[in-house]
């Protein structure tokens, strides 16, 4: 198997001893088909056991190994070393506070995710004895793409609006709200609209589109947000121009 010496500049920060972060240079022999996460694992196992980063599945499903690789938000388990020449710069996801080394605090995203109620809110309670909620393939197709989100937060690191306006609810949370709004079994749209049609919601988005470019699950959050804008605009015109608010 082909091997090569890979050089990485990895961001290091220890909150107990450091006042600011710095970069540490590592050189490690890697196999050609390895990903950046493999290189980090080898560094941790053979060179420096103090290096901190999050990972779990190693197959682009869990969404925990997001980091900036040469300045771009990427899943490190999905980023092949063979695609990079020279020194690879590895940093924690931008726009999130750094806890230690490559580990960031996701609290802001989790809090926003909770606010948009990303779960089914049935139109009417239905006892189990009445059977399951049925759905046609066409109804499933309307929202299926938006179910693929793995909450990796790469879209938040890519979004310049989130960087400028941290109150912005952001791409993944609004896309997930849209996923449930589009679900034929759901009746919670009015509750979610109160959050996502607010100033801090979808209207902070200026359609840069970087979220969709970096999304490893091809959710197309930018597309979801434009659909939310159209639906929220129709709501607004109904509420303000039709008698009785269009209800």
């Amino acid at each position, binding site marked *: 198997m082909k091997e090569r010496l890979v050089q990485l500049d990895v961001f290091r920060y220890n909150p107990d001893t450091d006042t600011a972060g710095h970069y540490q240079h590592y050189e490690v022999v890697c196999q050609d088909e390895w990903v950046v996460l493999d290189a980090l694992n080898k560094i941790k196992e053979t060179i420096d056991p103090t290096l901190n980063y999050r990972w779990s599945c190693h197959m682009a499903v869990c969404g925990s190994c997001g980091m900036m690789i040469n300045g771009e938000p990427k899943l490190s388990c999905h980023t092949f070393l063979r695609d990079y020449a020279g020194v690879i710069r590895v940093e924690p996801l931008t726009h999130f506070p750094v806890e230690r080394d490559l580990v960031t605090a996701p609290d802001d995203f989790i809090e926003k995710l909770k606010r948009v109620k990303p779960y089914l809110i049935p139109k009417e309670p239905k006892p189990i004895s009445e059977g399951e909620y049925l759905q046609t393939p066409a109804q499933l197709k309307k929202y299926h793409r938006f179910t693929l989100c793995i909450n990796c937060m790469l879209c938040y690191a890519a979004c*310049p*609006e989130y960087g*400028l306006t941290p109150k912005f609810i952001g791409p993944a949370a609004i896309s997930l709200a849209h996923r449930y709004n589009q679900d034929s079994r759901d009746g919670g749209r009015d509750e979610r*609209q*109160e*959050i996502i*049609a*607010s*100033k*801090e*919601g979808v*209207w902070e988005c*200026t*359609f*840069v589109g970087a979220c969709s470019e970096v999304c490893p699950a091809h959710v197309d959050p930018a597309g979801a947000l434009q659909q939310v*804008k*159209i639906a*929220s*605009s129709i*709501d*607004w*015109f109904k*509420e303000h121009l039709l008698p009785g608010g269009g209800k």
Partner: protein
Amino acid sequence: MAKSNKPIIWFPFAAGGTVIAFFIPVIVLLTLLAALGHVPAGLSYDSLRALAACGLGKLLIFGVIALSLWSSAHRLRCTCYDFGLRADTLVANVLYLAAAAGSIATAVYLLRI
């Protein structure tokens, strides 16, 4: 949390974006053809003037120009914001007033035809 009134701005912006995507490339091409001296028969000065003279034609021309101006003003405002120009109210007022002035001028010219 109150719902935003942004749709008043965004909806004409989106409509203008669609208009720009469909109409402006065609207008650029036709203008280029005209500049090179190849004016298609249906687009001669007299027939275009006749279009601008009828009510529906005026509405169409006004719609294309006003929506395009509004959309461009809003896009420029967002671009300024993205580039870190934080005086958003000032930028918005200047750009929207420019778009409104262009729209009013269009209406005045069209009504004089």
